[in-house]
């Protein structure tokens, strides 16, 4: 690439000073004249129907301005997936308010008042009568013959027998008595699945295997706990809705809000300069954001809705817990020859979150079984919404498989790093499910083995392995390794920037600024290609009235890959135009010119890019954006048209080819020390090595590899949801009670490393790294615990000390393996 080295260098991001000094303004920091405040009335029941509401006393209170009911919401609207596919509106989908709450804590109505104290007092003055309905918070309880349903229609999404191509409906899924025969022994029943696929001869593989294991494991439900809750400020001005709210995509959230509000995208302006985390829970915002918008319209005043930490625990989202049963056959050298996986995913009573079903794909890629069968089901319950959380499905797949790999290595006498190396994906690694033509898919590249080798050396694996399981006093240490993988990028988005006559480069960034710094990092690619010093690059972000191009959501580790490609495409476009302008202005052949050091030159003839920008305006047409490519997204066309005539425009769609699916990989290493007299343990050390192609911004990269690793560690250490099944109500409603990991729970000096080999299927070589580190963090710790305490101690995560101590005390697992939310 260019002479100015930006890619691979650390730098000060444009938002850093504001963040560390507190000047950065998040949605709830804004104030507008005449602003009202909204508060929510939440359902006290896990499932109920509102019979009657008397708001007369509340409405009579001074300062109360409006009450919003579910009946006033726009009808459920279509949704768009991460990849831009439209899914038709579902009449049973989640909305901002409801008269039939399907979980305790679900918003039922909202009050707008002059301040929050008045709004809260108004809610306490509302007489509301609920008719309690049948409920269930545990999927296995629901699946039992005659078990309770979370919705009147049933407990699962499916297509009715007579209409296999029609829309999905909620129906009853039930497993027969015979399916439960091994439940008492802690084995997950494998009843009728909702999805299944296979490849290879699984039975033959088991028959030929040296070792066959059959293990059940359960992963926890974990709330996202984003730092900034789902607060939003809305007001209407000149017929447009202005909204301040956090999101994982500035550009795509406009479409969501427009859809939920039944507006045209031109009628919505989103202000979202800073977002306090998303982790997948607000890919394109949150439907709850419509409440202040609707109240603002109803009261003709700006409305601020500040979501509290407790409310965030209900509406913010939960990673679905998955029960898994894994039957795995190994050859004597540790090669995984046959694999049979059954997963049961927990879900709320709205749309199905696909983790349980999608886990099979990552398992197949990461462990490369020679033959595999996958089956899975997702069951609805009366618990809060499950949403995608960093490495959705992938994390659960890793957590289900890693204990099996560890146990197999121990039983076969193979080193833990070695068994993962033997089974690691390499290069264009194949994985299931098979495509329509029966062929397996494959990855663009994988350097998992290199990551394992590098980590094993840096972590001093051999030394730590040697002291694993050795007891000193009441303490015993254990060292663990885990591999992990997830999607690392998408394709097909647009880049847009203008170099103006002032000689500066103005980059339009539609990426959400949710803390990963990719909103700025990816544009370093274009700046480097243009030979622009970073000081002369301005990033325009966070305000959708400022002409932002079509951009991926920052979910599924897409951004670094997708938007570095788009930046590359836009820069290539601008370079070609600059060379043409130089040839037209200075003479000679465009092909003999080169762009570098803020100039375009053929060695003898030179123009500055500032001069090129002036010429671009004079020439017009494609050069300054008056003529645009036909293959860019409509959103980009609108944005670029508004910027036309300001200078040399780089605008292009990422049309680069890609052979394979893009995935990133991580190897994680942990050492723990367990006190066998208390069960309490400490993570002594952790390190992780990422394989996600070329590194664009090392400091941000390390932040992801370790930060997401810590998110994963929460799943091993203590984080979970807790429900009383008899009442269907949560009993851990405060943040501390759900026990997310804190900085003092993790080692002080964790290290990270990157393989840093370019992905061959993308021009910049970079893949995303937001997800793969999570499973590595979770499973490295669980594997280290197993190395210290032996197999069959931990049957579910988190591995809390009560369960460790009881297993040590009794010499066998004592916990309930399959009861939900304990």
């Amino acid at each position, binding site marked *: 690439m260019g002479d100015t080295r930006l890619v691979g260098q650390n730098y000060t991001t444009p938002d850093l000073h504001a963040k560390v000094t507190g000047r950065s303004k998040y949605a709830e920091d804004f104030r507008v004249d005449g602003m009202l405040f909204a*508060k*929510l*009335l*939440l359902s*006290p029941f896990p499932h109920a129907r509102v019979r009657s509401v008397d708001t007369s006393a509340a409405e009579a209170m001074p300062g109360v301005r409006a009450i919003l009911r579910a009946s006033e919401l726009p009808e459920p609207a279509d949704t768009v997936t991460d990849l831009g596919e439209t899914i038709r509106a579902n009449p049973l989908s989640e909305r901002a308010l409801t008269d039939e709450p399907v979980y305790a804590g679900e918003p039922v109505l909202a009050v707008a008042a002059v301040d*929050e*104290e008045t*709004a*809260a*007092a108004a*809610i*306490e*003055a*509302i*007489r*509301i009568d609920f008719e309690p309905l049948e409920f269930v918070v545990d999927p296995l309880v629901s699946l039992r013959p005659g078990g309770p349903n979370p919705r009147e229609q049933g407990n699962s999404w499916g297509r009715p027998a007579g209409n296999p191509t029609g829309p999905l409906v909620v129906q009853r899924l039930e497993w027969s008595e015979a399916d439960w025969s091994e439940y008492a022994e802690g084995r997950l029943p494998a009843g009728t699945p909702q999805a299944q696929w296979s490849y290879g001869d699984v039975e033959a593989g088991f028959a030929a295997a040296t070792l066959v294991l059959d293990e059940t494991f359960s992963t926890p439900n974990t709330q996202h706990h984003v730092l900034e809750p789902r607060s939003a400020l809305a007001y209407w001005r000149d017929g447009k809705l202005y909204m301040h709210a956090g999101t994982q995509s500035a550009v795509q959230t406009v479409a969501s809000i427009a859809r939920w509000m039944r507006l045209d995208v031109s009628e919505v302006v989103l202000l979202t300069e800073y977002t306090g985390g998303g982790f997948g829970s607000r890919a394109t915002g949150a439907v709850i954001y419509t409440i202040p918008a609707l109240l603002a319209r109803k009261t003709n005043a700006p409305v601020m809705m500040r979501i*509290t*930490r*407790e*409310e965030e625990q209900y509406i913010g989202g939960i990673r679905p817990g998955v029960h898994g049963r894994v039957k795995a056959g190994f050859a004597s050298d540790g090669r995984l020859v046959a694999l049979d996986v059954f997963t049961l995913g927990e879900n709320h009573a709205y749309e199905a979150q696909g983790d349980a079903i999608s886990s099979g794909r990552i398992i197949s890629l990461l462990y490369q079984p020679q033959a595999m069968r996958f089956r899975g089901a997702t069951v609805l319950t009366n618990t809060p919404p499950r949403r995608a959380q960093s490495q959705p499905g992938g994390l659960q797949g890793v957590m289900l498989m890693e204990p099996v790999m560890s146990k197999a290595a121990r039983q076969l006498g193979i080193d833990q790093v070695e068994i993962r190396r033997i089974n690691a994906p390499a290069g264009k690694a194949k994985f299931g499910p098979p495509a329509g033509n029966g062929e397996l898919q494959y990855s663009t590249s994988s350097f998992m083995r290199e990551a394992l080798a590098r980590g094993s050396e840096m972590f001093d694996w051999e030394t730590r392995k040697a002291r694993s399981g050795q007891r000193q*006093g*009441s*303490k015993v240490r254990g060292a663990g390794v885990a591999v992990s993988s997830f999607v690392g990028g998408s394709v097909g988005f647009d880049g847009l920037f203008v170099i103006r006559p002032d000689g500066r480069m103005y980059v339009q960034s539609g990426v959400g600024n949710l803390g990963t710094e990719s909103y700025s990092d990816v544009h370093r690619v274009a700046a480097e290609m243009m030979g622009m010093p970073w000081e002369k690059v301005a990033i325009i972000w966070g305000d959708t009235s400022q002409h932002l191009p079509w951009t991926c959501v920052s979910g599924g580790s897409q951004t670094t890959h997708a938007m570095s490609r788009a930046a590359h495409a836009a820069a290539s476009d601008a370079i070609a135009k600059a060379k043409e302008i130089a040839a037209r202005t200075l003479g000679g052949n465009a092909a003999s010119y080169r762009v570098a050091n803020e100039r375009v030159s053929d060695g003898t003839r030179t123009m500055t890019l500032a001069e090129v920008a002036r010429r671009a305006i004079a020439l017009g047409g494609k050069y300054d954006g008056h003529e645009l490519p036909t293959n860019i997204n409509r959103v980009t066309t609108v944005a670029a048209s508004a910027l036309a005539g300001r200078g040399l425009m780089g605008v292009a769609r990422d049309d680069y080819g890609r052979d394979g699916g893009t995935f990133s990989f991580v190897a994680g290493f942990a050492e723990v020390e367990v*006190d066998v*007299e*208390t*069960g*309490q343990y*400490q993570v002594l050390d952790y390190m992780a090595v990422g394989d996600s192609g070329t590194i664009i911004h090392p400091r941000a990269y390390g932040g992801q590899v370790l930060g997401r690793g810590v998110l994963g560690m929460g799943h091993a*250490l*203590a984080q979970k949801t*807790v*429900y*009383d*099944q*008899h*009442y269907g109500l949560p*009993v*851990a*409603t*405060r943040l*501390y*009670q759900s*026990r997310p*990991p*804190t900085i*003092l*729970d993790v080692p002080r000096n964790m290290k990270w490393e990157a393989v840093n080999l370019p992905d061959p299927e993308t021009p910049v070589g970079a893949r995303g790294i937001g997800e793969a580190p999570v499973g590595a963090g979770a499973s490295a710790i669980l594997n280290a615990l197993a190395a210290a305490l032996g197999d069959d101690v931990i049957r579910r995560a988190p591995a*809390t*000390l*009560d*369960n460790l*101590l*009881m297993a040590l*005390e009794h010499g066998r697992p*004592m916990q309930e393996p399959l009861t939900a939310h*304990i």
Partner: protein
Amino acid sequence: MATIHDVIAPFQLFQPTNLDDALDLLDEHGEAAMVIAGGMDSLDWLKDRLRQPQVVVELSQVSELRGIREVDGGLEIGAMTTLTEVAEHPAVIDRFKILSDAAALVASPQIRNQGTLGGNISQDTRCTYYRRGWACYRAGGNTCYADTPTAINREHAILEASRCVAVNPSDTAPALIALDAEMVIRRGGRERVVEADDYFVGPDTDIRHLNVLEPRDLLTTIRIPATWAGARFYFEKVRDRMVWDFPLVNVASAVRESGGRIVDARVVVGAVAARPLRLRAVERAVTGQALDEATAERAGEIAIRGNRPLRYNGYKVPLMRNLVRRAVRGGMGASNA
């Protein structure tokens, strides 16, 4: 009527600047007043709107309630002294290390900077059902939601439960009992002094409260006599996270030994009952015995006599047994002190 959380209802706020004014305010407003020391427990009650006092008396301006003073080889600690100050005070570290150890393991650094010693020992139980406003015995109702077949009672009592199965969550309380501390309580012009072990009450005595404080009462001072200064101490807290967690079980001990024999001992366990339990039977059994593994083993067995675990808290039985063993062994075995 509907309920809502996380918005504090209005109240009249008093911030007295001296102790007499504080006591006068409490006298004047009686049961209508809520006292706030560091607020680490009280603010949750206010945020949940489960307590909506008309009057709040906030004590941060009362300097007489802060500080640690040397008195006759012992210490007098103002109830408003922060847990960080207690944990870092040289005299506490030097002579009464279990108290600094206990204070240093409370919650998180931020909470220790704000939370007070008086507040830590006087805080209410953290039973999730009770704190959620369920109408249980402790809240004046007629059932215990934490003691049912489906109840989540992993953090509840294994000993001395009586209808209510909640536990006292304090980390410093067991240490203070082990040090034979005294609580100085003022009401108007009167002062009474209560031994630490008598400050705490179980549900059989008072199912609504964890301590003897009544409306108008103010805990002003915690006195620690010289009795146990420099003894062999042990404190350990077992919890789910390394920080920001209440104890699952904690233990505090003070042991005097001579010639390898235990001359006198205090052994106190927290978070296993509604009050921190001073294990007098253990103390009797180990006194006069050799300070060795056999004595520690026996102490552990005696400690858990009469335990009645619930569905999810059976682990507290071996945990308490093992912690008491360690507490008797003192410096002999593993320690996080």
